[in-house]
């Protein structure tokens, strides 16, 4: 359904639709400083929208564009304010006078490990990420988090070996790296959270009996005959079966 309502440009490859992404005549504009250069962009744009409106083709600094992947970590300052702010370019709106820069990548520290040889205990963190014990509890990581996670609290939980709490508090982490780049103790919080979640999923989440039983049934070829029957059915036979099936 072509809804002529200002959807994004189609790919230039198709070259059929007129370019739509021009602002409405009554659009208000603000000035932003992209890496120091001033551009007028529509008020209400996301930072990512503003960068593209200004004419940049983003290579690094855009991924899912919906707040799931963490590719677009951005730092900015506002006029008359000494603070450094952090956000995702895809979900943070521009403000007049904003001075911004995207972080193309963040040097990570990632431990290499064999999950099968690890134990879900504090010793694992001592071994793989000993720097968490340098945490000075300043909460800069928590302030930097664009997801508003309690980052410092999960690092403290990791120091205690409370893997369930690390899993729970870090669950919505996007691994954007803004915590790590701001941390005075040089901790890579997002990788600590990821390790804890994997330990929890592998060792601490209660096993599902019904899953083991179903896999055993499949391995013992319990469903083979029914599959073969279904796969041989005509479209009409299958259709009939489908529309007559019962619902949970």
């Amino acid at each position: 359904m072509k809804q002529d309502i200002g959807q994004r440009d189609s790919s230039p490859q198709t070259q059929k639709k007129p370019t739509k992404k021009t602002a409405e005549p009554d659009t208000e504009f603000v000035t932003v400083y992209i890496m120091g250069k001033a551009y007028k962009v529509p008020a209400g744009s996301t930072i990512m929208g503003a960068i593209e409106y200004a004419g940049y083709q983003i290579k690094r600094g855009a991924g899912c564009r919906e707040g799931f992947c963490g590719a677009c970590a951005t730092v900015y300052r506002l006029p008359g304010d000494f603070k450094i702010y952090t956000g995702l370019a895809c979900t943070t709106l521009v403000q007049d006078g904003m001075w911004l820069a995207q972080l193309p990548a963040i040097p990570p520290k990632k431990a290499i490990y064999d999950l099968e040889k690890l134990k879900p205990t504090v010793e694992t963190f001592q071994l793989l990420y000993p720097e968490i014990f340098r945490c000075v509890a300043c909460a800069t990581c928590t302030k930097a988090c664009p997801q508003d996670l309690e980052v410092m609290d999960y690092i403290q939980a990791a120091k205690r070996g409370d893997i369930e709490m690390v899993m729970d508090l870090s669950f919505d982490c996007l691994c954007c790296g803004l915590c790590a780049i701001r941390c005075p103790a040089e901790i890579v919080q997002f990788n600590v959270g990821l390790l804890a979640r994997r330990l929890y999923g592998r060792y601490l989440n209660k096993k599902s009996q019904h899953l083991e039983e179903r896999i055993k049934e499949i391995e013992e070829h319990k469903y083979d005959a029914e599959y073969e029957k279904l796969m041989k059915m005509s479209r009409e036979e299958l259709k009939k079966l489908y529309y007559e099936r019962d619902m949970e």
Partner: protein
Amino acid sequence: MYPEYMKPSLDKVAQTRAKRFELAKSGKPVFPPMSAEEREDVLQKFHPDYKPDARRKVRVGPNKGELLTAEVADLLESHSRIDPKKFDLSQPDYETDILIIGGGGGGCAAAIEAMRNGAKSIISTKLRLGDANSMMSQGGMQAADMPQDSPTRHYLDAMGGGHFDNKPELVRALTEDGPKIVKWLEELGVVWDKLPDGTMQVLHGGGTSRKRMHSCRDYTGAIIMRTLMDEVRNHPDMIEVLEFMPTVELLLDENGQCAGGILYNMETEEYFTVRAKATIIATGGFGRLHIRGFDTTNHYGATGDGLIMAYRAGANLLYMDSVQYHPTGAVYPEQIAGFLITEKIRGAGGQPVNKDGELFVFPREPRDVEAAAIIRECIGRKNGVTTQSGRVGIWLDSPLIEMLQGEGYIKKQFPAMFRQFNRYGIDITKEPMLIFPTLHYQNGGIEINDKAETSIPGLYVAGEASGGVHGRNRLMGNSVLDYNVFGRRAGFNAANYVQKVKLGKLTLEHVLKYEQELKEAGIETDRIAPVLLPLYTPEAVRKRQLTAHYEGTLR
């Protein structure tokens, strides 16, 4: 915050809520589900695929003469990014067992499985590892592991959802592997939602006859993708990851076997050759081609690159005439237009209602039917709400979920959705979301068999880039399962294949032949593919960019 002009409509939604709540509690369908004839009627009149200009005949390649989605036909009728004559293929820059194209869920699953079977691989990816639609799935993954369910029942649901066009052997592979995938992922550390006794917490999706949707809150894709990526990163000796280095053309050998590809460093603009004994395409879908001008839920790099590369090399495409529009994409605020609003919202009791707060469709019709019904309500019956920028949508009433499931349910089960709207001052526990269908999924793709093999020896495909698994309409939760099942199968089968295969001299002859075919068909175009990235530069800026040439979107 919703603007003042939407208030009268919002008030009406609030007024009808109590009545609709009673209806939902009754346990009966809140709106009569459509008959087969009604479904056909609304699809014919309102589904974007059925518009007269939605499809056109492709004039070159293995599917020549077939009606395809017009934008796909355009993609296929385009020039290569490279001049094959300029490449010296006798001295490859990289050599490996398996070249994996795409660093999403399918690519990572394939690399892990190949590694476990002794094969080394290179992952070539255009953005970062994990920058893929896999990262963004919210609702969950289907798998028939509950006692009241069975893999064959999952098979029947998937076949019906796909209008019985699915390839049976692929649906069997998908559904039979399902429970094993749940376990495989758990052993890698995926944290599934469970009840305290370890029973999986499962929900319905559109078109399921049993509750079999497994989730990780509403960050299902993010949790699975990051787990797979982390495991890939744990094996640098076996898996080499090349980021911002997409593959732009496949290599064949003189015997027609797939033998690697040409890679393009997007930052230094250099090209590199990779000689590989087998190649796996896991490049995902085409949402960023913005079919029919639609907004999309897809990630930045979803430009159908694998389709054109495989097509030039001679692989057949299946069902590239059908496009999945997700019924519920965000309309307001403008900044999140097109973003996915998970089907799990309707699974939990959220209802689509028009500007007067009235129900007009059963909330869990198959995706194509539900999407067409919403378009009919907005465009055909003019019962939508129009925003200041000219978009139109209907309401998805989320506060009802809190009434049905208890207070606090949304924040616990939909943290991503809550956060998405809360950023703009909209509290979805108290106010509904304005929605319209959004471009979501490539139903078809490169044809494979149940070993993930294509018609080209040594070329495998996994995930959204492949065709046949979902017929002409995918059900919710089957794509997460798809990339895991066929990613693993591709990795396993390729690892076995590379132990026997002998490669001959490398060639790009197929690219030259394809160019010749374009010429003979009289196709004159400056289109170049793979597209790699969409272009969002405004027209005024583009006019001032007096560059000598564009290579697709890149200058």
